[in-house]
């Protein structure tokens, strides 16, 4: 294709970042009269607040304001208003902010917090989401019925169920009756932390004129703007949100988090701006985390490998507030069975409240969790049937243009090809697999693969826009609403603009920081949607600009606009490049030699809106996504059965992304995403005691993969079956890079030692424990181990 699309163009933000000049919300402290904000949190997971005594703290010199929940008892939330800005009557998780302070310095704020006395009446807490579903004895939200919520969700008052999504297809009883084998398993994944490096930062300025200005580490500044208007009952247009570069987000900064508290503090601090910056421990305890999952799967299969019935119950542990977790449950519900076609499905996806930190979006949005379950189940089925796991999958996978997805929507013809990804990964794994290496009888090797799909989980009216503004030198400023949090989308968007307008990439200016007053609107920076949605908007804006340019040029060149070409910064009639007009002479308006001028500064604008449908409340039927990216991942592992230690020798990925706009950015996403998934799969888990206290709110005991833990070898394949309504054919990839890794590891372990793993993280201890349970004879090798050479 083009000059810029398909090229590994250097990131637009690269120089700022290597020079240390890229500015993050964390770095902003030069706002005049800025105060420091700090909050005191609940030590109980569930308790009534009896009294709050701030009298001693108030007297401390340098304390400007102290606020409690009663000062602004508005419930906030993305899809359901279930979260107090500060706890009002009761606390629902250990770590929930109860009192907040603004002060002249951290020292003062910290000292003042020590002087606040809160009396609690502890209540029994519900920690386990399965118990939360079974019993209504303990309710996280007694007033669930009074909360406002989006009509797309279905909370059940009097229970802990924040949402129940139903998927129904065919006749499940009949399906099981006709099955030759029925296989049932339960799989789990725990709650985890995003562990983005830049902690959550919110600077709020409630001004005397009733306007609000915010600087925030927010992935979705326009959503923050909208919800802040509602929270403080002022027009959306009175709110300005600045979202500078983000030091990582991964979904953890997608919603509305600490902006309302910063603004509330500002409002009560004589309208001085207040900066709330979380410590790492606060970030673990008080900021949103990722859902945990419990999946019960019952699959009916024919002896020939055809899966004909699947019944699933997903339980998503949302913690104390629903935030994005209700939508995770919804997306997890409609994708229930993964990239397969099954005639009879009954799936119930429940989002459950528990007394733990609240869960939000996380790269993958439930899909890594559900594919952990589905793809482990597929391998276990294959083993039961004595079939090759790839052959079993290929009998059942979704076929573009032919099949219906789980929610009975016909998959578009240009939707991409999961089988092609599977084959690429499997062939690569098999070609390199040497089986057992060396003569150590306690070391085993195995290979495993998984496949998956994901599209952006967004509302049907999710929209994006862009504008393209020419400068005097022929350079353009591209404005979009999507945030730069490391994923690199702005560079790809710049490439799309350069390609469409045929101008040098160096002349395309695009900012990484967002300003809701200046920038074009986009719904949110989530769900791997930006390249597709904002990419289309940018392309449309460029086409609009081109029309305006041709309108002027046609009068100069005496050629109708539709006969003109814009190439390499000049405009000419098709086939007559020598009759050219310099672009730079047109973009600010063209002046004839007589001095007569036409046109004016060029500014193109473009929009794009999702093409989806609502989903049927009883069956889940409908079109839930603008695209599905398909992919496959595989690993080769080495297991030491004496210790349970696991080494990832090779990690292979393939994705049908339609078109790689920037192959190096794709590679970066694949490397980064698969290592993040490796870390989640092998190490990560938020650990709580029975009372709901988080035990590992730090980077010592919340174990993350580091440089010295990398697999020996990486390989990846970009499959490019273009999608016609996508910008240059490209689908999103950001989240996809994680989805298959844990399941591939589980499958490779089973392949190596015939031990099935059902839960993550797959720590050495867990592998050892399962060996002891399933194949204790392997541990006898320790005797041989002592005597070997």
């Amino acid at each position, binding site marked *: 294709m083009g000059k810029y699309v398909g090229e*590994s163009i*250097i*990131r637009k*933000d*690269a*120089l*700022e*970042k*290597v*020079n*240390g*000049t*890229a*500015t*993050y919300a*964390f*770095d902003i*402290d030069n706002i005049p009269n800025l105060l420091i904000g700090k909050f005191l949190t609940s030590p109980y997971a569930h308790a009534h607040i009896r009294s709050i005594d701030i009298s001693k703290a108030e007297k401390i010199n340098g304390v400007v304001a102290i606020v409690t929940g009663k000062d602004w008892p508005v419930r906030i939330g993305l899809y359901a208003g279930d979260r107090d800005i500060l706890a009002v009557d009761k606390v629902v998780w250990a770590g929930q902010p109860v009192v907040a302070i603004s002060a002249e310095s951290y020292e003062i704020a910290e000292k003042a917090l020590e002087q606040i006395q809160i009396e609690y009446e502890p209540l029994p807490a519900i920690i386990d989401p399965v118990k939360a579903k079974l019993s209504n004895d303990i309710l996280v939200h007694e007033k669930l019925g009074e909360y406002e919520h989006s009509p797309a969700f279905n909370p059940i008052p009097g229970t802990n169920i924040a949402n129940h999504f139903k998927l129904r297809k065919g006749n499940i009883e009949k399906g099981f009756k006709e099955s030759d084998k029925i296989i049932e398993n339960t799989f789990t994944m725990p709650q985890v932390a*995003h*562990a*983005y*490096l*830049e*902690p959550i930062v919110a600077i709020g300025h409630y001004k005397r004129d009733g306007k609000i200005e915010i600087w925030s580490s927010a992935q979705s500044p326009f959503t923050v703007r909208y919800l802040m208007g509602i929270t403080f009952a002022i027009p959306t247009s009175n709110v300005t949100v600045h979202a500078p*570069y*983000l*030091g*990582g*987000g*991964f979904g953890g900064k997608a919603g509305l988090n600490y902006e309302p508290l910063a603004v509330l503090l500002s409002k009560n601090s004589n309208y001085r701006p207040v900066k709330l910056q979380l*410590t*790492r421990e606060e970030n673990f305890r008080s900021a949103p985390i990722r859902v945990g999952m419990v999946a019960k799967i019952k699959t009916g299969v024919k002896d020939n490998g055809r899966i004909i019935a699947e019944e699933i119950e997903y339980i998503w542990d949302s913690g104390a507030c629903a935030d994005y977790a209700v939508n995770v449950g919804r997306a997890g519900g409609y994708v229930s069975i993964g990239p397969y076609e099954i005639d009879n499905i009954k799936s119930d996806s429940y989002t459950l409240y528990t007394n733990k930190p609240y869960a939000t979006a996380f790269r993958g949005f439930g899909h890594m969790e559900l594919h952990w379950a589905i793809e482990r189940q597929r391998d276990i089925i294959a083993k039961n049937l004595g079939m090759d796991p790839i052959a079993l999958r290929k009998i059942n996978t979704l076929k573009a243009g032919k099949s219906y997805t789980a929610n009975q929507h016909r998959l578009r013809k240009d939707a991409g090809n999961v089988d092609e990804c599977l084959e690429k990964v499997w062939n690569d794994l098999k070609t390199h697999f040497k089986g057992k290496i060396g003569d150590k009888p306690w070391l085993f090797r195995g290979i495993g693969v998984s496949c998956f799909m994901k599209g952006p989980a967004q509302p049907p009216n999710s929209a994006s826009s862009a504008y393209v503004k020419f400068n005097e030198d022929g350079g353009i400023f591209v404005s979009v609403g999507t945030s730069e*949090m*490391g*994923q*690199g989308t702005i560079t790809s968007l710049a490439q799309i603009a350069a390609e469409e307008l045929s101008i040098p990439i160096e002349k395309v200016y695009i900012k990484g920081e967002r300003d809701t007053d200046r920038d074009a609107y986009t719904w949110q920076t989530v769900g791997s949607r930006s390249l597709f949605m904002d990419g289309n908007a940018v392309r449309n804006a460029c086409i609009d600009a081109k029309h305006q340019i041709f309108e002027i040029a046609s009068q100069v060149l005496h050629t109708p606009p539709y006969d003109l070409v814009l190439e390499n910064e000049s405009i000419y009639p098709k086939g007559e490049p020598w009759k050219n007009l310099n672009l730079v002479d047109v973009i600010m308006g063209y002046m004839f030699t007589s001095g007569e001028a036409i046109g004016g500064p060029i500014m193109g604008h473009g929009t794009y809106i999702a093409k989806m449908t609502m989903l049927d409340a009883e069956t889940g039927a409908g079109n839930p996504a603008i695209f599905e990216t398909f992919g496959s991942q595989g690993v080769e592992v080495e297991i030491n059965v004496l210790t349970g230690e696991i080494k990832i020798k090779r990690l292979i990925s393939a994705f049908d992304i339609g078109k790689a706009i920037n192959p*190096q*950015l794709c*590679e*970066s996403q694949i*490397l*980064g*995403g*698969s*290592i*993040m998934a490796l870390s989640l799969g092998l190490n990560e888990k938020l650990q709580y005691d029975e009372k709901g206290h988080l035990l590992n709110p*730090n*980077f*010592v005991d919340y174990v*993350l993969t*580091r*440089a*010295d833990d*990398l697999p020996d070898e*990486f390989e990846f394949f970009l499959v490019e079956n273009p999608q016609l309504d996508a910008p240059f054919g490209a689908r999103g990839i950001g989240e996809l890079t994680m989805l298959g890794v844990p399941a591939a590891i589980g499958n490779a372990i089973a392949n190596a030692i015939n031990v099935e793993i059902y839960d993550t993280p797959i720590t050495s201890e867990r592998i050892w424990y399962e060996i002891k349970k399933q194949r204790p004879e392997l541990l006898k090798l320790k005797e041989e181990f002592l005597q070997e050479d």
Partner: protein
Amino acid sequence: MIVNESESLIINVNNIEHKISVKPNETLLDVLRLKLGIKSVKAACWSGDCGICTVLIDGKPMKSCLVLSHEIRNKSIMTVEGLLEDELFQKLQNSFVKNGAIQCGFCTSAFLLVGYYLIKNKRNLDLLSIKKGINGIICRCTGYKQIIDSIYELK
């Protein structure tokens, strides 16, 4: 000499001498970010675990959240800002840019400084010694590989 209250201290940061007044409980990280406005130095854990506050003290990488300001008397501190004209450092920057070693950028300065130290000080720098050398810094975006490759390219 017991230092009690704020005391003025002469410190050399990026080859510039600063006379600043610091309290004993201020860390080097506080001094750099808050007093001198050197924002390339980031922080994320304040416990020595994440490593992104790393700076060079007398040429050696150290995590500035774990250094008291009074310990840096008569020492020379180097951050990214001080190395922008250094030829080797520029090569390393280019290598990071070229190899795609940057994503959110929040950890980038720390990796550049440690990479610079490793290239300058370690003979026979191989992939394993680079991995061990940067193991004290967390990156959540890149998966490290492109960072390792960028440093390796300049060994």
